[in-house]
């Protein structure tokens, strides 16, 4: 078993709370430390994104090591866009050798989103095949090619789920495939449409999936009405109901951020009680410094010692 704190919290049945840290577009170590500081003691693990939105950033494993130095437990994100199976397995070994024990396996945003739109997308394997590969490395002690691994990496394996993308009835089956491939925990896309989230979790409960995997509900507080409108219109796979827009419209512009946090806290309260949900993944994008305040308001402090 891995020594993951996140794993211990989830296995002990306590409500998990994870955060996110986007590495800088440069080798600015200070920037990583600055973003890490407000998260210490606030989250059980922090996702370190991997060239998110297909923009070049400090590599995920490198920023994860800085996060460890700051006292955080990283959740190392790895996308299929930039590496083939050799590089991925090498990075899993290297990351584990340096004390990284959680990872999140993702397809990755397509390179056309980013600032190198004509890069060759690798996609040698897909996210489900990546989960399966890391599980095989851990549980069978074998590389994908079949050779034996000298000290297999004991990763706690995460995967993403988007309960909102079409076709809706497929989504729970994709979740089942990720679990079968070896996912130990799931972090969902940012949730705004609670009706759909409830329906998806109910399906997962009915299929017995939530007994096999820990689902962390993705929450991103809206900073402004503009952000809500942008996410509704522009971000792929995002489902922002009109009632969220209306609530933000209903308050003074200066109060919109507070209203966004209030909505997030109401969601977190519901997730604490929702059967089949084991925690919350807070994606406070470029808002790391407000995580302590959100964690306090959401009533998830203090974080358990395990």
């Amino acid at each position: 078993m891995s020594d993951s704190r996140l794993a211990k919290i989830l296995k002990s049945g306590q409500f998990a709370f994870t955060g996110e840290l986007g590495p800088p577009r440069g080798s600015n170590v200070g920037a990583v430390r600055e973003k890490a500081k407000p998260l210490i003691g606030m989250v059980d693990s922090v996702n370190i994104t991997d060239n998110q939105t297909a923009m070049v950033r400090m590599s995920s494993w490198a920023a994860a090591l800085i996060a460890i130095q700051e006292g955080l437990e990283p959740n190392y994100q790895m996308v299929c866009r930039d590496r083939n199976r050799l590089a991925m397995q090498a990075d899993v070994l290297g990351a584990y050798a340096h004390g990284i024990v959680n990872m999140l396996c993702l397809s990755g945003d397509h390179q056309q989103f980013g600032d190198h739109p004509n890069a060759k997308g690798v996609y040698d394997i897909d996210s489900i095949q990546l989960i399966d590969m890391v599980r095989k490395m851990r549980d069978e002690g074998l590389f994908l090619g079949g050779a034996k691994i000298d000290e297999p990496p004991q990763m706690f394996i995460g995967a993403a789920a988007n309960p909102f993308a079409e076709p809706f009835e497929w989504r729970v089956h994709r979740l089942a495939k990720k679990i079968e491939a070896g996912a130990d925990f799931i972090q969902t896309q940012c949730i705004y449409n609670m009706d759909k989230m409830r329906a998806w979790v109910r399906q997962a409960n009915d299929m017995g999936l939530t007994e096999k995997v820990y689902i962390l509900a993705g929450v991103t507080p809206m900073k402004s009405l503009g952000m809500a409108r942008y996410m509704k219109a522009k971000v792929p796979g995002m489902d922002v109901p009109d009632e969220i827009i209306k609530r933000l419209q209903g308050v003074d512009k200066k109060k919109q951020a507070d209203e966004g946090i209030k909505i997030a806290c109401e969601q977190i309260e519901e997730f604490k009680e929702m059967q089949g949900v084991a925690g919350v993944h807070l994606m406070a994008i470029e808002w790391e410094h407000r995580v302590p305040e959100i964690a306090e308001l959401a009533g998830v402090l203090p974080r358990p010692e395990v």
Partner: protein
Amino acid sequence: MVKAKKKPFEEIKQAIEGYTRVLNIGCGGCVSVCLAGGQKEVNLLNLQLNAALSGENKATRVDSFTVERQCNEAFLTDLDKVVPRYDGLMSMACGAGVQLMAERYPDKPIFPAVNTIAIGVDRQIGIYEERCRACGECVLGYTGGICPISRCAKGLFNGPCGGTNNGICEIGNEIPCAWQDIYERLKAQNRVADILKIKTAMQWQNQTRRMIVQDEYAARYEDKK
């Protein structure tokens, strides 16, 4: 069939400017069908090139010759008598045709006048859609006859990613999500169970040059060894 598209005019012109007599060789195969490099396109391009080059007082002149198929040496014999008169060659065939010409006339510089784009289907006159990347390990039987490699921007094998947007791929451009289409088609055929199973990592067959030997013909070549 193979689909190609003519290179930008300036790029073609600059490539041949340093030569005096250039032979532009068309192909009556796929590039003719997709209106990129058949006899008609060769003649039209040469008219434009000769007009532009003489307008710039360049010595370069381009002649035409179209063969039935540039990817088979049996169709190139007529060229053997013609090619020695030229100091440069241009081909409007696909990449395979260009390379076979280069192999046959190794002392002649050769320049492609088209970009080979894809194996695709005809939609309208002059409009073609990519359908196959020749991966060498066809999965269409498992995906309802919709190719996840050429049609999914991420080449996924296990269902639509979270970026699919009301049936449209996350990269936009109104490209339909391949996996949404696969799902809908299999659902209509009562075959969704096929994609509930995990499709394991692809063993890519297209990472080194492939030689295709049809089983029925293998023996005759083995005998010669």
